[in-house]
């Protein structure tokens, strides 16, 4: 009970704010109680340590103002950099799609003709490529006309036969 009373006084507020009466009572109690004596001594030393600590001061150096302004400029520059990155990311999709379109056009222009993927547009290629729109192809089909030499007698006979059969049907 007595210990709690002393400890209550010691922990209730700063030791320096205790009145003379409170301090004398605490000191008197501590004389007859080893535990309270230790607590009182520790509280006294703690107060002295904190007082010395509070008395310490660090003053600003003459270069502090310059240092803060330099740091501020640096930080503002750092904050601007991410906004440029955001802008680049937003434009990135557009730039990528444009690059893809250009690449695709380049493939169709320079690579596809050599692979026979596009319609022929010059004489040399036309001579070797099958002509799906010729009369031969229409009459005999592309498979027959592609590799075999055309017999024009067969063509005439087929034409007349077809005309005669139309007359009979009429």
């Amino acid at each position, binding site marked *: 009970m007595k210990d709690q009373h002393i400890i209550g006084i010691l*922990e209730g507020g*700063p030791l320096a704010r205790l009145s003379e009466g409170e301090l004398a009572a605490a000191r008197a109690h501590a004389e007859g109680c080893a535990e309270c004596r230790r607590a009182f001594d*520790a509280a006294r030393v*703690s107060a002295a340590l904190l007082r010395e600590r509070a*008395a310490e001061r*660090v003053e*600003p150096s003459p270069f*502090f*103002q310059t240092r*803060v302004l330099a740091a501020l400029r640096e930080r503002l520059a750092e904050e601007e950099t991410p906004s440029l990155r955001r802008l680049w990311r937003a434009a990135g999709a557009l730039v990528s799609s444009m690059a893809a379109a250009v690449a695709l056009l380049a493939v169709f222009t320079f690579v596809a003709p050599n692979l026979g993927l596009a319609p022929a547009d010059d004489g040399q290629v036309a001579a070797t490529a099958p002509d799906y729109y010729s009369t031969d192809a229409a009459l005999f089909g592309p498979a027959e006309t592609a590799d075999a030499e055309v017999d024009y007698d067969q063509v005439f006979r087929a034409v007349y036969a077809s005309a005669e059969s139309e007359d009979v049907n009429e």
Partner: protein
Amino acid sequence: MEQAGDLELARLARGGDESAFAEIVRRHSPRVFRVASRFFRQRERVEEAAQEVFLKAFTQLDSFEGRGSFEGWLTRIATNTCLNLLRAAGRRPELTVSDLTEDEGAWLDNQLSGAAAARHEAAERGRVAADLAGRVLDTMSADDRLVLTLVDGEELPVKEVAEMTGWSESKVKVQAFRARRRMREAVEKLLQFGGKR
């Protein structure tokens, strides 16, 4: 610029006037350093903390509406910034008597015996005590350190500490009560084992 009031300087700085902000830094550096000194002891760390305070203040200039004093507004930012820096730094392990220097041990002995230390000048004794106080405080939480330094060290009124920290007055009192106990117990251990050296 030196004639301008804080509110005017804040308005100009907000608009991008660097010289206005430079004047704010010049005018309020001593106050910010005083706050940062409560948390940190090494000059380099105090300067870093003070710089961070001003950079934070710059980004928060919009929130200063001129209702209270600029100094009070800046002190709150300084206190909270330093508290966060201290929290991030964490705390050191418990200080034992074997960690004490010879001077620190002698200072404790002198405190117990009540005798004036003859071997050192007062300034030197003060430095030893401040070093030891810093080492003991380093083992405590940031909140404990703050409240002990302000309430017990500087003997500031609870109301003022509450305004600086943004805590309620009852929180300051409870925090101080508990911190005082923890500090007393830590010192008691040093004294107890120090006496057996």
